[in-house]
């Protein structure tokens, strides 16, 4: 198979899944492993799904339930036939000798599998998420070893995923880690206040530069020019007419839907007479 480019793309659902299976691990298990599913394109790999696989690990041996892995893969394939096994993941900071063995198992399933480590124990203060591909090293013919070369990890989202992740981000703020789903105008208000915050940041930066406190950056200046030019200059009357016609459309639709609702309520009452 072709050598992968230096980046691996991961969807957020994979990370959430890994975190969840780590939390549900069996008593005494230090780490969790599982299979990664995704799609391979010409020069990039996209990881879109994963499931955990039960395994036992002790000092000298490691046992992975490959039957289970195969079964799960079959089931998943029925839902999304385009996903293939890309590699496997493990929680924990380092790569151990057992990882090499497990990697060999997975080499049989997929060509050139990717190994992902997620540091759930937060050993270095942050959660390190790294990806590796194995490469042969050593003297051919004599001792051959395996080296894991790191790849860079990028996160990509579908549009709707981005919105879902935004909502989840906001659960970090409340102490009970919960967030209700808002509706209607409060969403628009929330969005508007976010834009306002961004504008305030930009304004403070500009003021700093103008008063000499901050350094002027040319590229930022160019972005600002783009920003100002993006607001279209429409003559006042044209804008009035556009705005009014839009508002009229919306009001008419609201009126019609209210009318329809009244109609069906009336019909209901008449029938139940």
């Amino acid at each position, binding site marked *: 198979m072709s050598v992968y480019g230096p980046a691996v793309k991961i969807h957020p659902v994979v990370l959430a899944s890994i975190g969840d299976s780590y939390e549900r691990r069996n008593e005494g298990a230090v780490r969790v492993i599982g299979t990664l599913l995704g799609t391979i394109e010409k020069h990039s790999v996209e990881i879109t799904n994963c499931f955990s696989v039960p395994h036992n690990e002790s000092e000298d041996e490691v046992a992975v339930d490959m039957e289970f892995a195969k079964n799960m893969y079959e089931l998943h394939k029925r*839902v999304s036939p385009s996903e293939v096994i890309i590699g496997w993941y493990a929680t924990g900071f380092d790569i151990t000798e057992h990882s090499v063995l497990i990697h060999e198992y997975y080499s049989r399933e997929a060509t050139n599998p990717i190994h992902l480590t997620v540091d759930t124990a937060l050993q270095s203060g942050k959660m390190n998420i790294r990806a590796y591909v194995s490469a042969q090293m050593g003297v051919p013919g004599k001792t051959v070893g395996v080296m894991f070369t790191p790849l860079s990890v990028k996160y990509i989202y579908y549009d709707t995923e981005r919105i879902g992740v935004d*909502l*989840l981000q906001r*659960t970090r703020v409340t102490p009970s880690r919960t*967030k209700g789903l808002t509706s209607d105008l409060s969403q628009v208000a929330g969005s508007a206040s976010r834009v306002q915050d961004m504008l305030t940041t930009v304004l403070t930066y500009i003021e700093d530069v103008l008063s000499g406190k901050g350094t002027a950056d040319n590229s930022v200046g160019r972005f600002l020019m783009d920003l100002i030019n993006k607001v279209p200059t429409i003559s006042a009357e044209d804008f009035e007419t556009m705005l009014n016609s839009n508002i009229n459309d919306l009001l008419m639709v609201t009126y019609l839907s209210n009318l329809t609702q009244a109609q069906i309520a009336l019909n209901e009452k008449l029938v139940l007479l």
Partner: protein
Amino acid sequence: MASRKDSTSTTTTTAVVSSSGGGTLDSPVRQIQIEGLVVLKIIKHYQEEGQGSEVVQGVLLGLVVEDRLEITNCFPFPQHTEDDADFDEVQYQMEMMRSLRHVNIDHLHVGWYQSTFYGSFVSRALLDSQFSYQHAIEESVVLIYDPIKTSQGSLSLKAYRLTPELMEICKEKDFTPEALKKANIGFEHMFEEVPIVIKNSHLISVLMWELEDKSTVADKHELLNLSSSNHLEKSLQLLMDRVDDMSQDIVKYNTYSRNLSKQTQQKHQYVQRRQQENVQRLSRGEPPLAEEDISKLFKPPQPPPRMDTLLIAGQINNYCHNVKEFTSQNLGKLFMAEALQGHNS
């Protein structure tokens, strides 16, 4: 192993709930708590598999804690493409649950989810499925995910259950007008909406932080997008179709009631004529004619099932509700745009 605690309803009011949510619910589930993982999985499932077909469905797993329903995981259903879908489904479900139990995921069925297209989900199929779920497991819910509304800027996920009255009716399978009148069900009392709360564990919160750190600030403010006519057109189109269906149904019901009244009139006339004849015969000294069984002569017309009407009315209500929400948001956006222009000019 997740064990289900027996939950008894704790409210003291007996208010009937309308589908607009809020207020006290006299059902065993007051709130739904969803993990972030489930939300992401549902979004991903629709995104990848649901582009062409009508709906994507899946099963929700979790447990019940006091009066909260916690949904901790989910798995999707394959599409109905082959004919042996039935057998495949049950087997698939069994295998999935067994496998998930091995990795300590809650394997308790608590409901199902479905994607919808512009809010058109009130259908016979949904009713039947939800009824069978709710019959088997009292606290189950159906999560409706609206991908089009979500792509416009805000996650649209709603949880519904059937009201107890509707459950009764479905159990009897008696959809005649009289039965519905007795139960006093309007289209607003069919489903009750349960408020949803999203919760993340600490580890997932750390993951989220890492995501935000690493990913670029590609904050697409879709919500502030002003172009609305496309969405409105589609919604109104669907609304018009439904109203057409509704009017057809109403015509059917009208003909039925007209037939019924005509028939009662005929019966009345017949009985009167009989009595007159009998009186005449008695006056002439002949034996009276035997009273014939009227009901055999005049077969009563078949009353049309009212369930479809209820469903259509509920659907129309839902459409109207969505449209109004959409227009109110857009009005807000338009006024904001006006303010922006006002500053510039």
